[in-house]
């Protein structure tokens, strides 16, 4: 363990604290801290995947509440409603389900096209940059006339 701070002598503070712990007969390990890096999400792929995950409106979201007491009753009521009325939920949302599937397919198609076009634009830009650089590199230098500069 390290102590950070310009105004403290971290090493001696730690040493003294450890000695006091030893005097109390305490040895301890550090609590493991999970430091998984956060992902950078490619938005188009993420959205297409999210559409897939959420395309079926007949499947409810997880039931949660921040309330106690009455809130728990509401959770129970929602659960009972879903169990007993799923047939009617499916009936009411049948067309929405179909529509969502089409939106998903359309989005996937468009996203794939955008990804392809982006790659194509990048490639063309790279080609163009290379073409612009090439003549400059190839240009012959004219011999300088007059007095040589030191």
């Amino acid at each position, binding site marked *: *363990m390290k102590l950070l701070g*310009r105004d403290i002598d971290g090493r001696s503070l730690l040493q003294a*604290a450890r000695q006091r712990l030893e005097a109390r007969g305490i040895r301890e390990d550090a609590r493991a801290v999970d430091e*998984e890096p*956060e992902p950078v999400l490619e938005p188009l792929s*993420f959205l297409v995947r999210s559409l897939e995950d959420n395309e079926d409106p007949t499947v409810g979201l997880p039931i949660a509440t921040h309330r*106690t007491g009455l809130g728990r009753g509401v959770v129970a009521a929602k659960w009972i409603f879903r169990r007993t009325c799923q047939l009617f939920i499916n009936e009411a949302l049948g067309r929405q389900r179909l529509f969502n599937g089409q939106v998903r397919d359309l989005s996937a198609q468009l996203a794939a096209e955008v990804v392809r076009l982006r790659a194509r634009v990048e490639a063309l830009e790279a080609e163009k940059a290379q073409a612009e650089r090439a003549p400059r590199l190839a240009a012959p230098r004219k011999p300088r006339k007059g007095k040589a500069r030191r």
Partner: protein
Amino acid sequence: MAVHQLVPHFRIGDATAQAAVHFRALLRRLGLWGSLYSVSQEPGTEALVQPVGTLRVQPDDLVLLHHAIGSRLAARLLHLPCRRGVVFHNLSPLRFYRGTPLEPLLLAGRAQLSGMAPHVELGIGVSEFNSAELRRAGYRNVHTVPLFVEPERFGPDRVDPAMAARLRSSALTLVSVSRVVPHKRFEDLLALHREVLRLRPDARLLVVGGVDRLFGPVRLLEAEALRTPGVTLLGRVSHGELVAVYRSGSVFVSMSEHEGFGVPLLEAMASDVPVLAYAAAAVAETLGGAGMGFDEKRFALLAELAVQLGTDPTLRARVLTGQRRRLEADGPEHSEERLGAALESLGVRRPSRPRARRRRPRVGIVVQRYGPGITGGAEAHAAQIVARMLPHWDLRVLTSCATDHLTWANALPPGESTVDGVPVLRFPNPRPRPMLELNALSRRLFGRPLDRAEEENWMALQGPLLPGLWRHLAERSGEYDGFVAFTYLYVSTAWSVPLVGHRMLLVPTAHEDEALAFDSYAEVFERPRALLVNTPEELELIHRRFPKHARARVVGVGVDPPAVQAERFRARFELPGDYLLYVGRVERGKGIPELLAAHARLRQATANAPSLVLAGEASMDIRAEGVRVLGRIGEQEKWDGLAGALAAVVPSAKESLSLLALEAFSVGTPVLGNGASTVVRGHLERSGAGAAFTGEIDLVEPVGRVQRERRAMSRAARRYAAGYGWGRVVDAYREEMDAMVRAG
């Protein structure tokens, strides 16, 4: 151009809301104007923040989205036909929220962050940590503008006394300020506290912040906390209570495993409590080498350190000194500089003043209302200055469309017009002032310590809101050589002053007022080139409240009475006997109800009591024996009336000049004034031409005195008024403006 800001949900006290308000203050100081917009907001903030649906942009405007969670504003930003930027506050780590209702929002937020990258011109991280994440997400033009606190808002004078009394104790006290949500690791805080209890059985742990019960384990933790000795969950608290909690603490502790910045760390530093924090994410950067950071969670060891930090006076003093140094080095000025650099990368700069020197300076007069028939001390003052300076300056009055000072309703057409040969540019107020709401908010806020967002919310509600004026100043101030603004109190002035800063002369017309306690007004008094105050008492008041105020000069106004005929007034209004005259707005805030009660007592006590004459626009119903209400009267009638009065009455306790008193003196009429106003008392003491009443207005003795000594008082009044000549006033304004033009 304008720099607008989008905040998904605006609630006073939330970090993003606070950041948006702070950014707007910095933008004003950089000479830039913009509004705040949100999808949803706390009720009562409608004057400060507008619904995002009302946002209208121009192509060169910049819109900054404060991004901290998935929000529909990200999609809206992408399609705004203007320049775009993101202020990134970071997103809570997914690993703490898997399977919770927050997970989809966090995922969406991360995807939106990358999705916006190719479509924005500017990425602002509120820490280097966040900026690094912006770069990883594909942002190119990335700048770091750190958040900040205003240390004076956490001083010992800002403590809520009731909370301080409740928390007073000699026990070792750990303080934590954060919402109780999974990544803040409340369980680690409890583990540390349990270890501290083994060393100090009477130790306490005070936790400020809401408990988010949407997360199942948090509920269990809350129950565990309530079972643990010495733990107090204080929930959400007011600003004064927050300062009281910080200042009751021996050590501030943060066990959070993710902070995009960590404002409470700075708040603790400003409250002089040593900080012990787990150096996760941006925490080490925010600490900036101050306080005590640690990189492993060994609770028994940390308990030893916490006790030592809280009880060893030498260690504590050293840490506190370092923390103060940290706050001084990276305060608002540092953030202003960084924000300025970020905007400069887009070619955004404060408009420069005109290069060509004109023979007559072109001056903008900023005042809340202007026009014929508009009464009000500061408005009349502005009109007088305009009339006197017209021969010397090319003037343009910048004002609202309002004639009514209560609602600021748009009564006059916006745009260019002329009043007595002076060009006037009027800007509409998009939101009339709701007086009941303002009064209720005033009752709730006055006399209490507040944070900037609360103060600016009150100021916005007070109005008049003139976004057109602020845009005009931000974009076209270069067309003016200088500005003169009247009345510090209204946002039309308060938010204009920082926009043009040292090119502004401010006539504050300050008096004892609860709003003067707001720190947000500091920049109004500190940023202008000079303050032109009315009286020595006003200057003393300003100096007491804002010791770092701009250079100030007592200038006041001149009084130039025309030829008067008292009999003409008596005949016109059929006033045969003695009378006391009040001229001004007839409303509660001016002390009229108290004056009426005092007059009734005077009539009961004396047989030959003078009648009371009230002249001016009345916003209250008055029916009383011996009282005449004349309504608005003409200018000559006012002078005739003053000349014939036994005395003029100034019942208001809030006066910065009391023009009425000076005008009465100039025609030899004594004044009965409210001694609670230091300005009025000063006039009366210096002149010897009247009497002051204090506490409950008592007219019996002062009226008797005036009746006995009127002749001598009249002579003294004329002598005193002779010192208020216009020549001196005009010279002072010209000197100040010429010096401003020369300074460039």
